[in-house]
């Protein structure tokens, strides 16, 4: 079978058995990049030379028996807001166009310790603010399923790179849906773990109380294996959770007899595309056939998630992004009169419009005289949203719904109306406010051949419930299969579409 068709875990298995070399997997990925990257632009930085050096080191460790985990030798892509020692980390912003970190993010370090080979850094919305990967200073990424459409965002480069087989798996970050929504748009699996599960050390902060790192993968098994590798307490992140149950691959079992699944009625209401609705409900039906008890219920406050989120996220962003001032790193304006002029010009030239919009809003809601009316109000609503979820999880084990109201929009359609773009985050955003884990898994395609994602949300620390449910769904569906009719409309080589269709004859 073609190497690119393997999942990350399968690839590593073949390497450890000695059937192929680490180098072969890396070669395959570079072939794929050569063919498709110029059209798609998944990456901001590619590290070809380094990837082969790393591949060689990993191969030696595997040969000596020092590396035996499920990710040994797997080529990875890393979102460009995760620091990588010695490699440009730009956050897709002009202000960090030349920033080369002196250390790697803890999640990246852990992945490398597990034998990952880093291929490069993926494109994203500037500072992870956006839902389409169109706000990148380096230009847009295109959706591998249809290049006229966006890949979603903000982890759009990571999702597109996995879908286009320009890597075997990727890391992203999710502040309001930035892993789950692009996963949905690109037909891959994406998971945001419970807040505090993966160390944020070395993740350039957007909204610190909401940011969380997670995997984007070809299937649920890869997702569990990667999460297991990167999760864990880290004293370098003061919000890191002390949890021991990070053996996520133990949850990869088919069986959800008696699982209680609730579908919020508001997740199926106005604004939801009919084809997305149909595919998601079909997914729910399949889980019902597998033994789950599925019913609709009223999850309160769904519409209030977005205004609360944008208030809180903008407030935190305005504070976090104060550090970009052209003094210690990054871009500095060329001409200025005095320190404050330098700050202002540097920031005005360095940040894009969406980032400035959020910094301005955040500065306003935190300012004296408006703090109580806006910021504090949003924090109180957050408490109410958290309570609504607590109530929901006293009745249900899993909350099911779409990851996004539509499939991927066309390029250029979203940016003109910020509020409309923000509304696209409605199903993902409140999981961040409440700190909950969520996963998006492919559940079909629409009539245009664009992927649809089904989202599962769990209570805090219940990633295993989500993974087991997702795994059961994947198996029941017959692997990550795409309906035949859609394949003919997809504008890329059938070999690549193949990846989604194989994979059933697992283990």
């Amino acid at each position, binding site marked *: 079978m073609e190497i690119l068709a393997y999942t990350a875990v399968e690839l590593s298995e073949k390497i450890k058995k000695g059937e192929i070399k680490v180098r072969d997997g890396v070669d395959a990925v570079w072939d794929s990049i050569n063919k498709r990257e110029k059209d798609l632009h998944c990456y901001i930085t590619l590290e070809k030379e380094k990837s082969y050096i790393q591949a060689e080191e990993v191969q030696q460790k595997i040969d000596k028996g020092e590396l035996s985990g499920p990710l040994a030798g797997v080529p990875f892509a890393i979102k460009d807001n995760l620091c990588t020692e010695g490699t440009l980390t730009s956050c897709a912003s002009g202000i960090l166009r*030349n*920033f*080369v970190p*002196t250390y790697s993010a803890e999640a990246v370090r852990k992945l490398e310790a597990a034998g990952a080979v880093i291929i490069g850094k993926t494109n994203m919305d500037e500072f992870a603010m956006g839902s389409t990967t169109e706000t990148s200073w380096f230009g847009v990424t295109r959706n591998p399923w249809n290049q006229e459409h966006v890949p979603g965002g903000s982890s759009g480069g990571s999702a597109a790179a996995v879908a286009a087989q320009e890597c075997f798996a990727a890391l992203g970050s999710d502040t309001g849906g930035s892993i789950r929504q692009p996963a949905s748009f690109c037909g891959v699996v994406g998971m945001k773990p419970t*807040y505090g599960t993966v160390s944020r050390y070395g993740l350039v902060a957007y909204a610190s*109380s909401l940011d969380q790192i997670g995997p984007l993968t070809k299937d649920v098994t890869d997702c569990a294996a990667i999460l297991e590798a990167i999760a864990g307490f880290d*004293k370098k992140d*003061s*919000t890191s*959770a002390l949890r021991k149950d990070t053996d996520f691959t133990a949850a990869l079992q088919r069986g959800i007899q008696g699982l209680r699944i609730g579908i919020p009625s508001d997740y199926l209401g106005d604004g939801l595309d009919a084809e997305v609705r149909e595919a998601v409900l079909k997914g729910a039906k399949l889980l019902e056939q597998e033994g789950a008890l599925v019913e609709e219920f009223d999850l309160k406050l769904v519409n*209030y998630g*977005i*205004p*609360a989120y*944008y*208030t809180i996220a903008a407030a935190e962003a*305005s504070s976090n992004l*104060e550090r970009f*001032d052209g*003094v*210690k*790193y*990054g*871009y*500095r304006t060329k001409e*200025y*009169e*005095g*320190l*404050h002029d*330098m700050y*202002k010009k540097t*920031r*005005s030239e360095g*940040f894009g419009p969406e980032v*400035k*919009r959020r*910094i*301005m*809003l955040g*500065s*306003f*809601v935190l*300012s004296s005289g408006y703090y109580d009316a*806006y910021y*504090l*109000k*949003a*924090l*109180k*609503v*957050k*408490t*109410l949203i*958290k309570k609504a979820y607590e109530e929901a999880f006293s009745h249900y084990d899993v909350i099911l719904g779409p990851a996004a109201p539509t499939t991927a929009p066309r390029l250029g359609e979203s940016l003109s109306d*910020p*509020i409309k773009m*923000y509304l696209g985050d409605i199903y993902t955003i409140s999981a961040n406010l*409440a*700190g909950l884990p969520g996963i998006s898994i492919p559940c079909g395609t629409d009539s245009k051949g664009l992927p649809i994602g089904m989202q599962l949300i769990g209570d805090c620390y219940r990633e295993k419930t989500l993974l087991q449910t997702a795994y059961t769904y994947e198996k029941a569906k017959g692997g990550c299969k795409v309906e035949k009719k859609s394949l003919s409309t997809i504008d890329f080589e059938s070999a690549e579409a193949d990846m989604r269709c194989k994979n059933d004859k697992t283990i």
Partner: protein
Amino acid sequence: MAERITDEIIDYVSILAKLKLSAEDREQAKQDMESMLQYIDMLNELDTDGVEPMSHIFPLENVLREDVVENGDEREQLLKNAPSIKNGMFKVPRTVE
């Protein structure tokens, strides 16, 4: 409803945000903020009297450690990222006359 985002507020916010706005940017920012605040006003439909604000979802405490230097000397490396340096230090425009 009265205009909330006046020119004075935009000036004040751009000082807080350390951003220099052109005349065109200012008008755009006024519009953008006004429409976002109108949207955010939706939160006022909810009665939050007596509700505790939640800044973090888990109860957090300050994480303390011994005051011991753990990181090595990375001065050279760190300065490589600086836009301007002098004698091993960051160089900035004169701040005190």
